[in-house]
């Protein structure tokens, strides 16, 4: 099985679906690059090269470079989706989506409901999340909880290259608006990815490791950190069940509750800010529907409630570290840990 990067996997998913369905279009800033200029025709392929090569295969009518106007990209994409196209709109950094909340929250997310179930909006919005690259406070946020909060949106957070391809294909085939959030620290990570098209259903968690001692739920780039901790713990005889929900909306509540029923102990690791975030959401889920099985308070490992620092040492301290995840696991197991 060929090993491919997260970046290649996303490119292949776009390529597969554009080849399969002529209604699939890509729209965004420099998704091809060079539009209207005299230089190279496929100069950029997106800010990180994810859409590279598509314009050569599918042409300018289906790979559309836009001016730097986020609200226009999202408005055009939402409108195109409501007419039957399947746009994949790219917005470089999730931090910039604030200027198009109306198009996303109040228009695309509501069409199906407001038109009595008769409207379909097969729109995918791809964007980049996450810290760890010294991109500073305005380019490093993990804003997935904001989209998860909105009924009518589906929210996808692939943690590896295999999932990225299968989830993006599913997103493009889905008839509702999907927010597809790529973590910027993952683009060069590799996994075995089939050449063929495949779809991973939404709302179906991945059990990354299996165990009966403690459940960890982690999202996106935090999955790899939690996995490293789980592997270390295994050497000590502690069996961690690591769950990657893959999508925050819909959320695979059943997988989480079923696991906690066995382990009785839960650690949630998320890169979003702690208030009204996924860690709090899952802690509340388990407290309300799985309380009887809990043997210890739920531990939440998140950044502090501050902007993402620019200084590399502060940024490293901001993110949930392997050490903090391990300490949380030990705390729910009832082991005493040195104070941080």
């Amino acid at each position, binding site marked *: 099985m060929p090993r491919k990067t997260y970046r290649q996997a996303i490119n292949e998913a776009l390529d597969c679906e554009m080849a399969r369905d002529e209604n699939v279009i890509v729209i965004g800033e420099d998704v091809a690059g060079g539009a209207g200029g005299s230089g190279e025709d496929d100069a950029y392929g997106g800010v990180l090269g994810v859409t590279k090569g598509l314009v050569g295969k599918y042409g300018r009518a289906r790979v559309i470079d836009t001016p730097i106007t986020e609200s226009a990209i999202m408005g055009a994409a939402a409108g195109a989706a409501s007419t039957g196209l399947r746009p994949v709109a790219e917005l470089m950094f999730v931090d910039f989506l604030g200027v198009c909340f109306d198009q996303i929250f109040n228009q695309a997310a509501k069409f199906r409901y407001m038109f009595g179930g008769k409207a379909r909006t097969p729109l995918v919005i791809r964007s980049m999340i996450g810290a760890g690259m010294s991109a500073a406070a305005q380019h490093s946020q993990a804003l997935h909880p904001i989209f998860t909060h909105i009924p009518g949106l589906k929210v996808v957070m692939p943690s590896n290259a*295999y999932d990225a391809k299968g989830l993006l294909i599913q997103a493009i085939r889905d008839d509702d608006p999907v927010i597809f959030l790529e973590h910027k620290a993952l683009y060069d990570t590799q996994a075995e990815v089939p050449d*063929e098209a*495949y*779809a991973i259903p939404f709302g*179906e968690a991945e059990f990354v490791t299996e165990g009966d001692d403690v459940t960890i739920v982690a999202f996106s780039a935090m999955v790899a950190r939690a996995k490293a901790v789980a592997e270390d713990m295994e050497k000590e005889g502690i069996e961690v069940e690591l769950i990657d929900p893959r999508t925050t909306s819909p959320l695979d509540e059943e*997988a989480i509750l079923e696991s906690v029923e066995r382990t009785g102990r839960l650690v949630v690791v998320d890169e979003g800010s702690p208030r009204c975030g996924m860690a709090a959401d899952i802690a509340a889920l388990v407290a309300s529907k799985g309380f009887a099985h809990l043997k210890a308070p739920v531990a939440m490992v998140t950044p502090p409630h501050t902007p993402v620092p620019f200084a590399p040492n502060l940024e490293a301290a901001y993110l949930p570290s392997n050490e903090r995840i391990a300490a949380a696991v030990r705390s729910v197991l009832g082991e005493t840990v040195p104070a941080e």
Partner: protein
Amino acid sequence: MADLTALTMPKWGLSMEEGTLASWHLAEGDAVNEGAEIADIETSKLLNTLEARSPGTLLRLVAQEGETLPCGALIAVLGEAGTDAEAVDAFVASFEVVEPDAEDAEDGASAPAYRTAEVDGLTLHYAEAGEGDEVVLLLHGYGGDSGNWMFVSEELASVHRVIALDLPGHGGSDKALPGSGSLEDVAALVQAFIAAEGLGAVHLVGHSFGGAVAERVAATGAARSLTLVAPLLPGAALDRGYIADFAAARRKRELREVLTRLVADADSISRDMVEDVLRTKRLDGVGEALARLGEVAGAIANEAPRPPATAALAIWGEADRIILPPSGGNLGKGSTAVIVAGAGHLPHLERAAETARLVRANIAGERP
């Protein structure tokens, strides 16, 4: 220099890159007969037992239990009893890993390879190994692929040219089915494949649904011999629940439970095997192909019982819960049924060495 033989991590199938030494069956100093069970090796698919190919005394166990090593790595040294320990040390120290493929090439045998063929508008994918005038064609079962033969193909390839085909809808072959996807359509495609590749009269070996296909192909007179492993014959006692549950399973835990019904020892289903099957099921077109072939399998089981049209050797695992062997082993005129102990529906994976010997004997016309 003492006459020492290296025992290396086997390479069972093209995709195997490493194996874990699960347990030793023998200790240092034990005498080894040809065919003796030496160790259990865990692969990404299943646990398999490594057997000795030549007699001798087990002088040194190099690999530790639990150790994972690449294919071709030294795991033990065989030789004459009483061989000087220093000579064994020197042999271990000077051992160099030889790529199994390169080793085959030196022997003049062709290295195993994946190939494709275009037949009736469909791309068929297959694994090929060994050389010889006579071709052994291996047909896997419902939901399987050519990799299911990984533990037996090496043994068969030592004397024949072996081709393990991915049936349409499976493995690396096109996911579209020929015609209406009926048994006759699939059998006709396999015949067309045999003709297109110029294989002539082949030795057919089919497992489960692949056994049904092999039986139909053999009925046209195109086979030198017919070996059926837990075949789906007309009127078979098939567990239809298995097919429905296999098709429906979407989560690892669910799928593992379904796959454990295939084997006698539930622990032999590895996490990687479950993951591989799940990933295959997600590929475009696989769900539709499995749904159609599931119907076809049910229809075969609904037919009036009918023995193979061609005299066959049929091999069944004693603990098969998916397709029960015909009562009294009655397979009709000229056919023989053999029951393999310690195996469920996958004797070619669970009791690979014994199954390979039975297949080889049947191919040689020496039916037990």
